């Protein structure tokens, strides 16, 4: 089945994300009044295909599949759906899937653009285990920020309903907004821990590639900015009780910013895109 590559499996996973996104529109129009089990299983099936695609790619190249923009995007999407499948075991938090699937679908379509997946060089960019760990930790962190943005979107929808569409708010089966806020907070906290770990590996990475470039690499200040942004967000919440709508908008805005800028900075980076 050589003609059926890891990209084909990923394509099937994206198709399921798309199906789930369509189903989510119906759920939303029905006011989230029925359990989101169907969506959960759709995303579970998509996750299986997505995982298979990543495994195949990893085995083919004998390294963690985090070498180009296609792989980075699929890794982030995989983290989002994996974290969702765990959180979605709680019935009411299962509705996160309805908010996550359009984002997963969009990320999948973006990742499938051929230009993002150039053929691997003879000498892989990430030839060292520590380098792979660095990349994986950062992408896992972005995935956690992504799911927290999904929870933020859900929070904002429900909060708006509670204030202005009171009937819809009460008839829906969405979880209490305070619980959503905790989920957001937990994911951001996990994300910043992963990002911190990922960034703190940098001094120990092989130097032959980064030597002379690190200071000029725009991805470094970019990563520090992202790290600081989320740190400030968490400290503001912990120290000054900055919760609710502003917290949710910040979590959502932060991830949208990453989605819009990450690939650009990755392409600009002489180390990551030599």
């Amino acid at each position, binding site marked *: 089945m050589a003609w059926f590559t890891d990209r084909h499996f990923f394509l099937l996973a994206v198709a399921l994300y798309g199906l789930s996104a369509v189903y989510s529109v119906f759920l939303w129009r029905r006011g989230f009044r029925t359990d989101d089990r169907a969506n959960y299983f759709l995303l579970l099936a998509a996750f299986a295909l997505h995982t298979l695609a990543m495994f195949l790619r990893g085995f083919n190249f004998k390294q963690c599949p985090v070498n180009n923009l296609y792989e980075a995007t699929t890794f982030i999407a995989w983290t989002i759906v994996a974290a969702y499948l765990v959180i979605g075991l709680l019935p009411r938090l299962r509705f996160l899937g309805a908010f996550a699937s359009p984002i997963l679908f969009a990320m999948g379509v973006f990742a499938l653009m051929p230009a993002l997946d150039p053929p691997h060089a003879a000498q892989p960019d990430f030839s060292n285990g520590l380098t792979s760990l660095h990349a994986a930790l950062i992408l896992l962190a972005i995935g956690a920020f992504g799911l927290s943005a999904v929870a933020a979107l859900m929070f904002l929808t429900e909060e708006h309903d*509670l204030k202005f569409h*009171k009937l819809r708010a009460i008839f829906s089966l969405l979880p209490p907004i305070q619980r959503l806020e905790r989920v957001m907070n937990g994911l951001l906290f996990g994300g910043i821990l992963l990002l911190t770990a990922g960034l703190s590996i940098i001094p120990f990475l092989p130097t032959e590639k980064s030597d002379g470039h690190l200071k000029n690499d725009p991805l470094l200040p970019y990563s520090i900015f992202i790290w600081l942004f989320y740190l400030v967000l968490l400290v503001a919440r912990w120290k000054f009780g900055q919760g609710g709508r502003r917290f949710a908008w910040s979590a959502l805005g932060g991830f949208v910013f990453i989605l819009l800028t990450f690939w650009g900075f990755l392409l600009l980076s002489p180390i990551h895109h030599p």
Partner: protein
Amino acid sequence: MNVIVIGLSHHTSPVELREQFAFADVKIPDALKSLREFGIAGEAVILSTCNRVEIYAATSLEPAKAFAELKQFLKTAHAFENPLGEEIYTLAEPHSLQHLFKVASGLDSMVLGETEILGQLKTAYKLAHQHKHTGARLNKAFQRAFNVAKHIRTHTSIQRGSVSVASVAVELAEKIFSSLAEREVLVIGAGETSEKVARALLSRGAKSIIVASRSFERAEILAKEFGGRAVQFEDWSAEFEKIDIAISSTSAPHHILDRAKLEPLMRARKNRPLLLIDIAVPRDIDPAVNFLENVYLYNIDDLQSIAADYLKQRKEEIVRCEQIIAEKVKPLLEMKKVRPQISTDGHRLKPMSAES
């Protein structure tokens, strides 16, 4: 034997009349015994609640004769001498069985779909069964009614949602807070509805209740009842730092809480979510506070419209429930055709132990 029903309910008679026909629990066994001794019924169950007094009887008498005797029995048992008209209803098969199923399912209740009646019906049946006043017909009918009620509860939305202001308020609180266990509730002005809301919140696990009323004495009585504490009316805003839910029902002619007053209070409470329930008319809380972050304001109209919408949904389910009932009654009627009749000679009837 036919199963028949005679009774009065909130549909046909006012409480002033219903209370005259109510049976005290202790008197029901004797009343059932009399019904059988007089030969009116071979089996009987008496259901006496605040909303209805009904006698379910299995009798071999002609329905018309049985109804006349049962009516007389009711009047005699309660020394009621005035004439009775449409306040009393009488139903023969299949309507009697359908009525029993409807009552069990809460379809005939004042609050459509409520479940309390099922418990009351079970108690009434148990009492009759314990005193051996039920037999094959009523055992089968009641067991089937309980099963149908369960089926309707799980397969329709007849019992979904809250249809009272108090329970809607609780549901709202559960949409905002992860758990009610750690929530403190402030009741400002002690009206009947705010009391009910506070009670409902307490029953769902709210941590404590603080009562502020213009009459401190009244506040203390209420607080004691709730196991909470009373504060002077002038000091209610000082409690905002601690509380999570405020229920307001004062008779003030103007807003007692507005945006300017709430903003600093929200800062003091570190912007924790705050649910405000304004039951007062004229309103106690300026609607503009709803625009503040983490503040959720609901007035009496909001709560009532949610309750009304739930009720509307329940009403839309009635047709489905009635179809289920019609289907479930059929086998019971067919079973009667093929089963030998049990005599009503006053002998002890063998109760059925299990429902097929």
